[in-house]
């Protein structure tokens, strides 16, 4: 039986009409009418401002919106009759949309965008989050120029973030990716990034696109694939990244998409990361990272309570994942009063590495392993919030850097337990 294409005939027809492009901007969406209008307008303006002569297209991969999101994207096209309201368009700008059949999944959306990029032979592609309301036209230049000038294959963003935004990033993804792969990539899980056609095609061809992969977070996998493939990676500072409120239940899903992908990558890339020590900076345009300090209300107490509850309720699970000494230490701090509670960097790194090794060995269901890490992360988040409660931006950066160094210092421990010697 012939293999079924994940691209619809209608979308394929649209791609044929678009033809070869120099610049492709992919926008994954799902019910984003509140934000998508201004973002698409900014993308259009960015293309006309910074790439006025290039053949460009906006590709919308929509996860089944019912609020008219795709129509807003398609409306950004500049054809024979349409004109940009503010800027002169030398050439046509196509903006097309497709809805994929499965439920909303970033992996499916990215796959669609990658396929479009390959079919259109795009030289440089950017993916823009439909929630980045603070996006400016400069973002497109910052992301796409290094790729279009063929100096980079992957451009990842750095942002000005609130010090307590992205705690999973600052306490796990960044430091562990840095320690394991030896590259100081501040946003390994990026919702805005740019890539070369070469990298996109390779990822599209190599990645096994199935449901589990999609759940595992293809954006993170994309970064890791670029690292593993030795592609040229750089960072561009984009400016402010607004915090997007998420339900606390989203944490497990976020960890699946990011931590799951990171853990998953360790297996095939063992020969690459096992020989690396320390870390190297990567080329960065603009600031590496900025922290802002506006006061915010965070329910720290709840975090610690969820940690303690988790440690108690998941004891049997932890017994299969963690070393006895680590589990004992976690149980000890779980009993501490809020004022004396501290989930130290060393203990946190040890915990994470033991989870990674357990994931590798599949001591239990890998998904359960990721789920089990969530309450422990909440405990670490409590400590991070406490440590930096009154800290300056520099203090926060120092603490993040110290944690990174701890991950790097303890990397031999990961290697030691990787093959079950402890």
């Amino acid at each position: 039986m012939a293999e079924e294409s994940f691209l619809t005939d209608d979308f394929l027809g649209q791609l044929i009409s678009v033809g070869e492009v120099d610049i492709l901007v992919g926008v994954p969406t799902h019910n984003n009418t509140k934000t998508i209008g201004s973002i698409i307008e900014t993308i259009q303006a960015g293309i006309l401002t910074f790439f006025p002569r290039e053949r460009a297209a906006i590709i919308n991969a929509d996860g089944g919106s019912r609020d008219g999101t795709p129509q807003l994207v398609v409306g950004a096209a500049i054809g024979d009759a349409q004109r940009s309201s503010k800027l002169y368009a030398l050439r046509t700008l196509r903006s097309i949309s497709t809805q994929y059949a499965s439920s909303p999944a970033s992996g499916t959306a990215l796959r669609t965008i990658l396929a479009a990029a390959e079919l259109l032979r795009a030289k440089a592609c950017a993916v823009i989050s439909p929630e980045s309301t603070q996006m400016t036209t400069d973002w497109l230049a910052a992301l796409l120029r290094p790729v279009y000038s063929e100096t980079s294959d992957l451009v990842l963003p750095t942002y000005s973030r609130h010090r307590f935004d992205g705690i999973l990033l600052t306490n796990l993804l960044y430091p562990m990716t840095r320690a394991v792969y030896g590259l100081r990539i501040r946003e390994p899980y990026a919702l805005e990034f740019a890539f070369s056609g070469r990298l996109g095609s390779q990822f599209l061809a190599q990645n096994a696109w199935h449901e589990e992969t999609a759940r595992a977070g293809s954006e993170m996998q994309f970064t890791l694939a670029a690292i593993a493939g030795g592609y040229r990676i750089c960072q561009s500072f984009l400016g402010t990244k607004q915090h997007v409120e998420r339900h606390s239940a989203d944490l497990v899903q976020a960890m699946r998409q990011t931590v799951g992908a990171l853990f998953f990558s360790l297996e095939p890339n063992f020969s690459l990361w096992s020989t690396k020590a320390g870390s190297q900076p990567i080329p960065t345009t603009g600031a590496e990272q900025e922290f802002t300090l506006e006061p915010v209300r965070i329910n720290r107490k709840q975090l610690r309570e969820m940690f303690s509850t988790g440690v108690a309720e998941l004891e049997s699970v932890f017994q299969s994942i963690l070393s006895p000494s680590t589990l004992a230490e976690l149980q000890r701090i779980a009993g501490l009063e809020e004022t004396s509670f501290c989930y130290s960097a060393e203990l946190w790194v040890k915990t994470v590495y033991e989870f990674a090794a357990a994931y590798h060995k599949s001591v239990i269901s890998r998904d359960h392993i990721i789920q089990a890490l969530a309450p422990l992360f909440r405990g670490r988040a409590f400590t991070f919030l406490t440590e930096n409660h009154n800290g300056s931006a520099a203090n926060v950066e120092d603490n993040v850097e110290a944690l990174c160094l701890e991950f790097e210092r303890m990397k031999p421990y990961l290697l030691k337990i990787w093959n079950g010697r402890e």
Partner: protein
Amino acid sequence: MPLKQDEPWYKHAIIYQVHVRTFYDSNGDGIGDFPGLDQKLDYLGDLGINTIWLMPFFPSPLRDDGYDIADYYSVHSSYGTLEDFKGFLSSAHKRQIRVIIEMVLNHTSDQHPWFHQSRSSKENPRRDWYVWRNTDTGYADARIIFLDTEMSNWAWDPVSKSYYWHRFFSHQPDLNYDNPAVQEEMWNVMKFWLEMGVDGFRLDAVPYLVEREGTNCENLPETHAILKELRRKLDEQFPGKMLLAEANQWPADLRPYFADGNEFHMAFHFPLMPRMFMGVKLEDRKPITEILRQTPEIPASCQWCLFLRNHDELTLEMVNDVERDYMNDSYAQDKAMRLNLGIRRRLAPLLENDRRRIELMNGMLMSLPGTPSIYYGDEIGMGDNINLGDRNGVRTPMQWSGGWNGGFSAADPEKLYAPLIQDPVYGSPAVNVLSQKRTQHSLLNWMGRLIAVRKATGAFGSGSIEFLYPGNQRILAYVRQLDDEKILVVNNLSNAAQAVELDLRRYKGNILIEMFGQNIFPRVGELPYLLTLGPYQFFWFRLRRI
């Protein structure tokens, strides 16, 4: 044999623009002449040309290639005599080839006797035939056209000790059309040539005839009034003759030159030309469809004149800054190729001698609404010489053969009015009429077929146009229709093969007949009509319901 005067002949003309000096030298003095041009009329007839547009051939100091006229009633001695011109005109008419001549109304040479008289004293009767001032501050809103050479539109005359007005070179003083005597005399000039038998005029630089303070001195109502009066006299005394406007303006500003069908019969569509080049370079139809959508309807008796190249630079006056930068970067990377606001290159070098692109551009020239004008030598893909000054690099001798002086002249090469193109790609040994005539698939023979196919239908000359807007923006598609005759034109602007689906439902039931090979294509149905086109390929289909 008298020419038919019924149908507006200019709608179905295939114009060939040539300077007598450049075409063929019959007497071996190194300069083309009317007897030489006469000898080459069969060549033009065989190509399918039915109208010749002659550039200025009047007595002139030739500081602007003849656009600086010193005597409107004669022929420059280098090109022959008035009798030679009459002989050429008669020969052309015998071959059903009409002749339109250049008429420079706006200005004369500073060597013209009228100007000598005008500058000689403020009391001279011809003093007011030109525009004089004591200061150089008048008409400050008028732009300077030749930016590379002129600092002002006013020039100091040491004889008259006054400033005179000039929109072009300072040696080309503008005539004063506020003076009725000037208007009358210029009509007398036109009448002189019309009585001799010329079929029309290409009127040079018409937007600038009248000046008024506080305006940009272009397209003024007073100018239109003068032009309408010339037209009235023309229709009254010489019916069937034609006026073609050179007005390098935006479509909306050009429209008044047609008035209610009582000003010009034809006008060059200047803004379209650079956009055709832009569309092919961008591989995007937008520049072309955009400008044609902005082009207003014109009276039924009127016609656009389309061209790819002419004797001037590829003008970029009618594009915006973004487009101009793009055109310069795309077609004139060498700064020596740029002149004023344009690019001084011929068609073939502009298109990198890419036969497919040359054919595509000519295909569009012949199928878009208007009468096509071919610049001499472009039918064989002649090159240019950017090392010659001004626009002389695109005005080199016609290349007839690979022999002595390219078959243009028997003179010693150093006596030629301009050196032949000599580079190995475009030089006469490589590019010439004789060898192309002997090669079935040469550009010259292909051009002949193209013209013949165009002339096989009236739809291209007189038909309406309806653009199709397929999703593939690399495809420029339109239907030309005259009564029941329908022609579908599909152009691939891209250097890669393209698939396109055309919505032809309104032509359901028609079969498509490809006009060059006469092959039949599938019948149009309800579904989008799928076509594939090779790089830069174009199709002309006759839609037939059989």
